[in-house]
């Protein structure tokens, strides 16, 4: 690593500039499948957060001793272990939500965002930065889940976290709860994200570009 890492920057980049969902377009499967309500989104986000941060911590701690020939297998073993822990914990604590999330909790193990962070970052950086990076990335993922889940619950049921917003006569947008609503909402949010990025890029071209603010 030639350039010096700034801990704040390493953490914050996952939230917006390198947001795993809106910029890297990773982790689409849970993104579309479990965001039909804000609560589901939060639980999924917390589970992913736990798995990613713990895995990054372990992988980074043992980065010197994991032989590179079998590193992916060992990452998967580590991730799968934490996913199992998360799975059982949710089943014990919040059985109703666990039932709704269903197969998508075990499927966290296949979330390419997590394996990607291990391979691309945690295995090459010190524990401190690996954990900060994981917190940022998982936070960005949670933010994305919540954005999608919030929009879908507000339009689909007229509620947010189960609290009614519009009174009894609200006409639910059924499609928002169904899978197509996930695709449409995600598409529109990506559209918005790209629009913001493009606008910012256009503005930065006019002004002198500050050092280090490389706009993707």
């Amino acid at each position, binding site marked *: 690593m030639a350039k010096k890492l700034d801990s704040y920057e390493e953490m914050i980049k996952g939230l917006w500039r390198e947001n795993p969902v809106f910029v890297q377009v990773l982790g689409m499967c849970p993104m579309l499948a479990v965001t039909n309500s804000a609560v589901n989104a939060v639980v999924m986000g917390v589970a992913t957060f736990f798995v990613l941060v713990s895995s990054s911590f372990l992988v980074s701690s043992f980065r010197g001793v994991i032989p590179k020939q079998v590193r992916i297998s060992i990452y998967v073993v580590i991730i799968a272990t934490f996913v199992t822990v998360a799975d059982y914990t949710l089943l014990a604590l919040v059985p109703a939500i666990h039932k709704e999330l269903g197969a998508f909790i075990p499927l966290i193990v296949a979330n390419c965002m997590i394996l990607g962070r291990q391979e691309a970052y945690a295995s090459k950086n010190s524990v401190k930065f690996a954990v900060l990076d994981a917190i940022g990335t998982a936070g960005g993922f949670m933010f994305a889940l919540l954005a999608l889940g919030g929009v879908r619950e507000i339009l689909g049921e*007229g509620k947010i976290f189960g609290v009614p917003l*519009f009174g009894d*006569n*609200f*006409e639910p*947008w*059924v*499609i*928002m709860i*169904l899978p*197509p609503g996930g695709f*449409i909402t995600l598409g529109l949010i990506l559209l918005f994200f790209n629009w913001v990025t493009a606008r910012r890029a256009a503005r930065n071209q006019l002004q002198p570009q500050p050092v280090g603010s490389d706009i993707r």
Partner: protein
Amino acid sequence: MSEQDPKLLLQPAPLLQQGMTTPQAMKDVWIALAPATLFGIWHFGISSLLVIIATIVGAVVTEWAFTPAAKRQIVLSDWSGALTGLLLALTLPPGLPLWMAFLGGAVSTGLGKVMWGGLGNNLFNPALVGRAFLLATFPIAMTTWHGAPDGFFTIHASNLAMPLMQSATDAISQATPLGLMKFEQSATATGSLLLGTTTGSLGETSALLLLLGGIFLILRRDIDWRIPVAIFVTAALFSMIINSVDAMKYPAPLFTLFSGGMMLGALFMAPDPVTSPLTPKGAIIFGVGVGLLVVLIRVWGGLPEGMMYAILLMNAATPLIDRVTQPRVFGRAKSNGGAK
């Protein structure tokens, strides 16, 4: 998307679709739709006019908002945005809350057209995209059918629901001919289907007037006659076969042809030159596919009407049909690299 490939334009005649992107062709469609629309307004009262206005406003506003200022003049002057709104309105129940109609118009244009890059680039028929969205989003409001009102100027209370709110529950829902067929196995007389004095979407009931408009379009060469003819023949044959198996349970061919959105879809939506195959052979395959799917969905599907999904599904198959049925281009490599 193979439709937009400039090389496709090199294929031999007949190229009936060539004039269609011009405002003149759009004007023809407006003229062709006028009788059925006016009849719908007369039959369902002033409510239906409000629904039409709401969808057109929704469609045009969306198109305006998402078009770069420099291009607005050109894009909006060809009346195609408003036409999308009108076509959508004709497929809606006359008692639909106006805010939903407006949203439908916006979705038609936004998700159905603008997002693909504007008129000519869309894979699906924009009006039907809007209808599919509305049907999936507001299934109850979209299947609450009002009959003819007491007087022409009676506005259904459900039309005036506040945005995001449910329609008032005064709606006395009446079953459409297709609904009666599906759930009570009773056929409506062909006469009233032809005239359009039944319940249904506000512009789809009058089979006769729609047929007149369609013939006008075919004579003006605005649409490919093969598509509607293939749809009618296939649907009629298919329904004749199943009707002969069990006449009580399955609809007769004439009922199939004149009920629901069959006429409107087959004549005004399926042949949309942007979303249907360009080749004559492709047009026939497309029409046969729509005809088969309509009857399949109507008879064995969960919903009474299947025209919308039939057309949307075949829209999705259009690029493939175009590629398969493309005539050999002479003087080129044999591989299909030319079409890619």
